């Protein structure tokens, strides 16, 4: 029983091992890219829409609606980043039902890479919308004494973002393996179904948290310039 797909090495090329994490990340990426490519090759705007296009449009508008609930405006700015995170995590979590597939999100290297993307994206979006000076000044809010804590919060929430996804996916794999050892007949199926639900929820949580972090980095500007206060303003340092 291995707790992480990092431990499974398929080929060793010099110092680099081709691990299960790497292979299955590429499988997920290939599914996403080839699937979208096959669908978007023949788009139609007529009354009869191909099935694949309908599926993608439903997914896209659902993601867009969720983003709009949090940021209210400028949905399409965040859509590529948040949508990609969500789709990648959802596919790697849900493909667990395919026998032999090890979820790449069950490895801490994948989840920390995703969390590092968020870690970079938060200042990038913040600086793009408010300028460098205003963004850096937000670390001094409410007073310069809070600077170390703000910086620390930025780092710890990245760590917790990655550990949360890793822990949940790893526990799903472990519980299924344990159930297989104890009661192999029917019980693992129930735990697998629960694992699917947890995988979906964690993908939602990860992308919503990334969005909330980005939104809180881009938003302070509007408060200071005296716009109407947001009802859904969430400042979360997880």
């Amino acid at each position, binding site marked *: *029983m291995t707790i992480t797909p990092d431990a499974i090495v398929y080929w060793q090329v010099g110092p680099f091992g081709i691990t299960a994490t790497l292979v299955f990340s590429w499988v997920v990426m290939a599914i996403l890219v080839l699937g979208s490519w096959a669908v978007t090759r023949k788009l139609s705007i007529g009354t009869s829409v191909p099935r694949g296009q309908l599926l993608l449009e439903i997914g896209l508008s659902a993601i867009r609606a969720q983003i709009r*609930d949090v940021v209210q405006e400028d949905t399409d700015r965040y859509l590529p980043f948040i949508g990609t995170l969500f789709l990648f995590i959802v596919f790697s979590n849900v493909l667990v039902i395919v026998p032999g597939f090890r979820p790449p999100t069950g490895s801490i290297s994948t989840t920390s890479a995703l969390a590092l993307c968020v870690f970079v994206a938060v200042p990038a979006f913040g600086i793009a919308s408010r300028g460098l000076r205003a963004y850096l000044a937000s670390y001094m809010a409410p007073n310069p004494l809070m600077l170390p804590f703000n910086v620390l919060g930025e780092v710890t929430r990245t760590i917790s973002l990655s550990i*949360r996804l890793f822990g949940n996916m*790893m526990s799903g794999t472990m519980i299924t393996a344990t159930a297989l050892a104890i009661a192999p007949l029917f019980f693992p199926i129930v735990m697998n179904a629960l694992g699917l639900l947890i995988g979906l929820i964690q993908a939602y*949580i990860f992308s*919503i948290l990334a969005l909330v972090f980005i939104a809180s980095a881009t938003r302070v500007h509007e408060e200071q310039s005296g716009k109407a206060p947001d009802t859904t303003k*969430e400042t*979360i340092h997880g």
Partner: protein
Amino acid sequence: MDSTELIGMISIIMAGATVGIGAPITAIGEGWAVSRAMGALAQQPDAAPVISRTLFIGLAMTESSAIYCFVVSMILIFANPFWNHFAGLAGAQ
């Protein structure tokens, strides 16, 4: 009792204790949050999307402390650095 046995014993006990203490306390907090959210939903069904989204985010936040406990106990059982160190020393002898 040599150091390997001691390390193995303490690791197993602490792995159980970590989850045994961390999970129930988190569960109490989560149950509290869900019950308050249910109350809020009953009072204002119109605000259901906002309430359920913040509930999910808050639950994920709370959940992460239980997940930390779980990860620590998994490390203690499956990837214990001290155990590996002493097992390596014993192998070298």
